[in-house]
């Protein structure tokens, strides 16, 4: 599903250059649930953003579901993001003047789907994350866990090939984190490919594979015995 070869990325600040990714090679097959770990500043988010086409690598190859992702203009990148990818952020990034339902329906709006269909579909995914009764609430009327569920429903709504989550549990307490991880495990079981950036080992243990980053290189890439989140709740 994802193939990365010799990926480099540097940031330039004035005369200083910060080489963040120094040649990443890694593949993700369909249906995998991968966590990316590493200390703060190791380049996890940078890598995930490049995978999400929110940012561009300096050199290297990136293929997503057979499409070469290189020198895309913003319009095509936007379409690919809409079709192939779903994002889950640490700070949820819901639009605060839109109801939960409308938030979930947003990617469908950008697909040009008709309102009626959109609402039906969004309602279906809200129900899937257990928030059917909350569809008309605004984000600030919900708890952090609920907001992240809405964000997950939004990421699923466009039926993407890959979910990218940057510290999805970073703003949640342990119990809520596990509930969210349970939801993510469920979604993975249905066949969705999921990448999670985290620096919490217990969260990483709930994925099927841990990739360890250090100073811009992968130092470790191991399959793990998946811990069921539900058993910790």
């Amino acid at each position, binding site marked *: 599903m994802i193939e990365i070869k010799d990926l480099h990325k540097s940031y330039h600040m004035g005369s200083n250059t910060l080489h963040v990714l120094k040649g990443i090679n890694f593949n993700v097959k369909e249906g995998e649930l991968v966590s990316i770990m590493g200390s703060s500043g190791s380049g996890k988010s940078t890598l995930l953003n490049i995978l999400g086409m*929110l*940012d561009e690598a300096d050199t290297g190859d990136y293929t997503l579901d057979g499409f070469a992702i290189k020198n895309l203009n913003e*319009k095509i990148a*936007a379409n690919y993001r809409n079709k192939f990818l779903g994002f889950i952020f640490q700070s949820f*990034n819901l*639009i605060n003047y*839109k109801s939960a339902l409308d938030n979930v329906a947003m990617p469908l709006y*950008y697909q040009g789907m008709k309102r009626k269909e959109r609402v039906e579909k969004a309602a279906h995914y809200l129900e899937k994350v257990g928030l059917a009764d909350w569809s008309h609430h605004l984000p600030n009327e919900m708890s952090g866990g609920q907001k992240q569920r809405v964000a997950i429903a939004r990421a699923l709504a*466009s039926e993407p090939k890959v979910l990218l989550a940057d510290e999805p549990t970073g703003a949640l307490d342990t119990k809520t984190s596990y509930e969210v991880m349970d939801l993510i495990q469920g979604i993975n079981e249905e066949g969705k490919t999921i990448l999670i950036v985290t620096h919490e080992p217990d969260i990483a243990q709930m994925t099927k594979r841990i990739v360890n980053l250090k100073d811009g290189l992968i130092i470790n890439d191991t399959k793990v015995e998946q811990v069921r989140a539900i058993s910790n709740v």
Partner: protein
Amino acid sequence: MFSKDRWDEILEALSANKFRTLLTAFGVFWGITILVLLLALTNGLRNGVTADFGNFATNSMFMWTQQTSISYKGLPKGRFFNYKLGDVEALKAEIPELKYVSPRLQLGGYSGDNNVTRGMKTGAFQVNGDYPEFIKQQPMDITSGRFISYSDIHAKRKTCVIGVDVVKGLYDKEEDPLGTYIKISGVNFMVVGTFKASNSQGDQEEDANTIFVPFTSFGQAFNSGDNVGWMAITGHDGKSITDLKPKIFEIIKARHKIHPDDNRAIGNFDLSEAFGRVNGLFSILGFVGYFVGALVLMSGIIGISNIMLIVVKERTKEIGVRRALGATPWTIKSQILQESLILTISSGMVGISFAAGVIWLMNYILDHSGPVDNFANPSVGMSVVFTALFILVVSGLLAGLIPANSATKMKPVDALRID
């Protein structure tokens, strides 16, 4: 371009911060209100001032005699002379472009001595000896009876047509003036008609104080022979009286042995020239109205642009999220353009309606408290409204352009990083 979804999306964004949206809208509202009001006031002034010209055919001039200023053919300078009825015939015959040449004799004036009596009542009125076509040069409403006619002229009948104030001055309330006699400087004239000025503005007082008698009867009654006091000359449509003037002067000068270069001997007032000057003045005023209004409007637009810029900045993260979810840069840009367009147009419409209300109120007050000098019927035409709308659309787009561009300048990843 506009689907219901877009509408919802835009209205939602605009109503997310109602107070700020309102404040922003106020700038454009105010600008367009001032623009429309300025133009309406200009129109009111124009209507008021041009009404002072009465309904007088504007392609007209008036001509009277003054002293000669150059000696010529053995005649000294400083000589007085009189127009004759023959001059009128000569002008009519030699310049076919002239529509009317009306000679007039005049007596008294409303500030002069009492010159008209009826029984015990007396009054000081302006008495004009005129030809029937004068009413075509200066239309007036005949309220009863008729105006003087050519049979009056030929028979030198002592008839007269009197203004409303003359009626008030010489008659009791329930009296019918038609068929009665009044004594003008000792000579009896029969009243055959009454009139009032047909415009409600300007010199109405003077008009109402006037008595018209047939030109020939006037000459006979007051021994002016075939002298003519002054002439009101109107050109045919499309033949400018200003252009015909030199030819008229040439004929008159030749007939009265006036030096061709003597420009002082003939006094004249060119109504069409004066009218043109006034019109020109108001075209300039109208332009100034547009200019000032547009400037005020511009500050409103800069306000919108400014606020949109702040809004875009505040919504940087939201825009980043939308782009992560698949919004193309153009979708974002067009949404911001449309937000600014809707904001400008709707606040502009409210401004236009508000200005229309104010104009209506002004007209209402003018109608109820009577006319004001040099001001009448302030109004704007549809063309002004459309121009204003056009300005609004263009300015809405301009206002949105800079914010829209800045909204998509940032990479999505950077936009998302902002808190």
